[in-house]
């Protein structure tokens, strides 16, 4: 395992804590009806997977994911202001309020969304990767894949195509145990999802502990290097969602299971790692936590003070006008 320096670890801690705070605040705002709608899928519990994987990329690489997208957008550098304003449907949101929770977007960060149709983004990832290869670049696409998406046709077509065309894609399955409410072993003939790589003639990089940001970073870094030079890679990250599928549906939350996973909470795992390796780091962590809580409150204030979209906004951006 490569040695990660302290500033990098602290930066990951900052990002993970920011995401956790952002999601907690979204939950509060949802209950206060300041974030409306019935669909909001929180990233709490999955922070190490998103932060560790995105950290393995350079800015010219690409990221795409499904509807549980807040954490990944923040890890990629979207400001909490831009994300929170989008959550509240404000003009200052990343998509001017048209997208909302599940459809964050940022061209400047090569963050290609945010997709609400399960698996629909997977062949798009292949297309974005095709551009990289077509133009002789070595940029890669990191495509997050839900465990549920691994059972539909998009997954099959996209992974097969990426293998046939040697496309630079890292397919990273976030296996959080459930596709909506259905456990992986009930919906997948082969519940070790990474093994499907064999069927596509693709590099299988196995399973990674999705609660450990250092482990995720190391595995995804190797995958990214492989994808740059050779072609697609499949990885499966084992993780857990603390808040159920979405805010409106917690019927299958399992308290015992949740407590088990919280024993290996990704933020605590990194905290332990830092405290073991660096003396007196606790104060630095406290400072980071205070700063990130303030950053989220500032984002909420910004979003609350922002204008709501107008009728003109409703009818704009239907076609590109040139």
């Amino acid at each position: 395992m490569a040695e990660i320096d302290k500033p990098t670890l602290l930066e990951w801690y900052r990002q993970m804590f920011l995401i956790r705070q952002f999601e907690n605040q979204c939950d509060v705002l949802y209950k206060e009806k300041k974030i409306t709608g019935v669909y909001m899928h929180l990233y709490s519990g999955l922070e190490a997977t998103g932060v560790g994987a995105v950290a393995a990329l350079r800015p010219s690489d690409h990221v795409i994911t499904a509807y549980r997208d807040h954490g990944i957008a923040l890890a990629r550098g979207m400001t909490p202001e831009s994300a929170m304003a989008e959550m509240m449907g404000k003009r200052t949101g990343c998509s001017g309020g048209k997208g909302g929770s599940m459809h964050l977007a940022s061209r400047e960060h090569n963050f290609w969304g945010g997709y609400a149709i399960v698996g629909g983004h997977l062949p798009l990832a292949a297309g974005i990767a095709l551009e990289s290869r077509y133009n002789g670049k070595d940029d890669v696409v990191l495509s997050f894949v839900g465990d549920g998406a691994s059972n539909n046709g998009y997954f099959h077509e996209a992974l097969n195509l990426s293998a046939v065309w040697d496309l630079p894609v890292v397919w990273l399955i976030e296996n959080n145990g459930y596709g909506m409410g259905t456990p992986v072993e009930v919906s997948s003939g082969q519940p070790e999802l990474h093994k499907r790589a064999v069927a596509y003639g693709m590099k299988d990089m196995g399973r990674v502990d999705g609660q450990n940001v250092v482990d995720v970073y190391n595995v995804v870094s190797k995958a990214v290097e492989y994808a740059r030079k050779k072609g697609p890679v499949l990885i499966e990250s084992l993780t857990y969602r603390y808040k159920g599928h979405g805010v409106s549906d917690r019927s299958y939350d399992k308290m015992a299971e949740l407590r088990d996973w919280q024993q290996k909470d990704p933020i605590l795992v990194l905290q332990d790692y830092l405290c073991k390796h660096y003396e007196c780091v606790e104060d630095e962590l406290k400072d980071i936590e205070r700063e990130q809580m303030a950053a989220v409150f500032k984002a909420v204030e910004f979003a609350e003070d922002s204008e709501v979209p107008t009728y003109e906004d409703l009818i704009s951006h239907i076609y590109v006008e040139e």
Partner: protein
Amino acid sequence: MTVLTLIDAIKQAMDEELERDPRVFITGEDVGKRGGVFRATQGLYDKYGGTRIVDSPLAELSIVATGIGAALADLRPICEIQFADFIHPAFNQIVNEAAKMHYRSGGQWRVPLVIRAPYGGGISGALYHSQSVEAFFTHVPGLKVVIPSTPYDAKGLLKSAVRDPNPVLYFEPKKGYRAIKGEVPPGDYTVPIGPARVAREGRDLTAFAYGMMAHYTVLAAEQVAREDGLDVEVIDLRTLLPVDKTAILTSVQKTGKALIVHEDNLTMGYGAEVAAVLADDGFAYLDAPVRRLAGPDVPAVPFAHTMQEFFMPNPDKIAAAMRDLAEY
């Protein structure tokens, strides 16, 4: 001027666009060495190589989706769907992704994509090689839908489609691929996406059509001119989305009568929208009810020759509909 078939005009447009812009590439089933199922890309693989003329797996959703992804990243893909009937597996990609990307991102993303697909019946292709699918897509803001009926328009509209910053569905009347011939100037020109074309000027009534039916409607208009002395104006709609309301209203203001012809089945077909435009904004111009001649409301074009003939509008049926309307 050179006389070309419809399909050769399409091929020439792609050849010239490939030459003009290195971002343009073609992907689809058998488009490479085989030159496409209808030979629309014949010779292009030898000229441009496998990086730009890319054989895909037999998997329509990923043909379209990789096109969308590549277009997001600023390439200019032309995706070929072998038959319009096969486009349905890619419906989600076209409707949920291509059409909505610019909108959902608040204007950050764009999808300069062309999807080409041969459509239409009359070739004994039976249920899954004869469909007209345009109405599924003309209902979707964010898309543009184009159907040429002449080689001149086919070349000029396809070039416009390739250069358009939006997703364009370009449906080709496959029955006319080799049957329809016309003059095509060599070299670069475009036909703008949007305006309809007056295919034949007339005063007694207006017949609206597109694709193969526009070709037939001109033949029918000539027939009723010869046989009945009727003077029919034919409007080749050629861009179905956006709707050219001005062309529809201007012509009916002059003639007072409207017939709409398409081979897609009647109910909720494109003709319903043309009729609605006239009802909304052209009511005062009308001297007769708006008439539609369309395929019957059956699930598909069936195989047996007799049933196919019953299904398909043709110049004789169109001429009969023109006479009926003229007599009103």
